[in-house]
């Protein structure tokens, strides 16, 4: 997550400025609008992802060892991620 979001912010800001440019030809403007729409959709997914990572970090900070197995990136995938929680409980 670290620097990724800062770069994303810059990209979004640049795109805003491009759209605000009055001197664009109709064709370029159309292109910029399409690009902006795509960026919005992707940026939404990126923010959701970043939020998940933050939640994982919070979980680890709050509960430590107990949750490490369920957080693949932190816990090296010992439990194969949250999808295996049900299996573990049943066992």
């Amino acid at each position, binding site marked *: *997550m670290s620097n990724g*979001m800062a770069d*994303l*912010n810059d990209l*979004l*800001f640049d*795109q*805003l400025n491009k*759209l*605000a440019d009055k001197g664009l030809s109709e064709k370029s*403007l159309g292109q910029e*609008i399409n690009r*902006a*729409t795509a*960026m*919005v959709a992707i*940026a*939404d997914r*990126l*923010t959701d992802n*970043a*939020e998940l990572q*933050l939640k994982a970090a919070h979980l680890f900070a709050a509960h430590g060892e107990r949750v490490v197995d369920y957080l693949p990136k932190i816990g090296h995938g010992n439990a194969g991620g949250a999808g295996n929680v049900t299996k573990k409980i049943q066992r």
Partner: protein
Amino acid sequence: MATQGVRAMSQRKFSDKEKQWVKRNVKLENAELHRRWVKWSGRDEISVAQLVSLRHRNGWKCGRPQRYVKGHVPANKGKKAKHTEKSIAAFFKPGHVPANRKGPGYESISSDGYRQMIVDEPNPHTGANCRTVQKHRWLWIKKNGPVPEGHKLKCVDGDKLNCDPSNWIALPTGVIARMNGSYGRRNYNSAPAELKPTILLVSKLEQAVFDHNKGKSE
């Protein structure tokens, strides 16, 4: 078979014969009924109310509507209230100020979570000599001038009680709508602080696209 609550014969106010008389005469007006009752029975210790109560208790209808009929004129219409010296002494005097009157400078929190305060300015709606304003809005306008049309003030850090003008920015209503967490989309208020700037930018970008497309179709 006697049921619960039946009085002993010696305790009953009206004999069976008396009840039959009342039942027969129940269509009379109350005062007239009582007059005739006293004449017939000699029992003037029975009041009008007691006869009426007997009628109600037994469900005998008198044929008159038991509510005010349209066009009913109050018995005391046009009469002035009689004020005694004692009652006048207890009135609020002109210029009386309620004990819980708050003056300018009083701050409180409104039901929707904004800090509001009373300021020393005439109220344009009621003409009173002071008015209640939202503190964040009041301070922001003092610093930055009126809020541009089509814009609203958005709380940056999520703490609405932080009324410092730097914590509030004027955004177009559309942008605010796009970051308010409806349809499971981005929710600025509940997002972690690290992600708030991104959400704001994405909403602004989406609004810019919308504006351009709207401009084209007009």
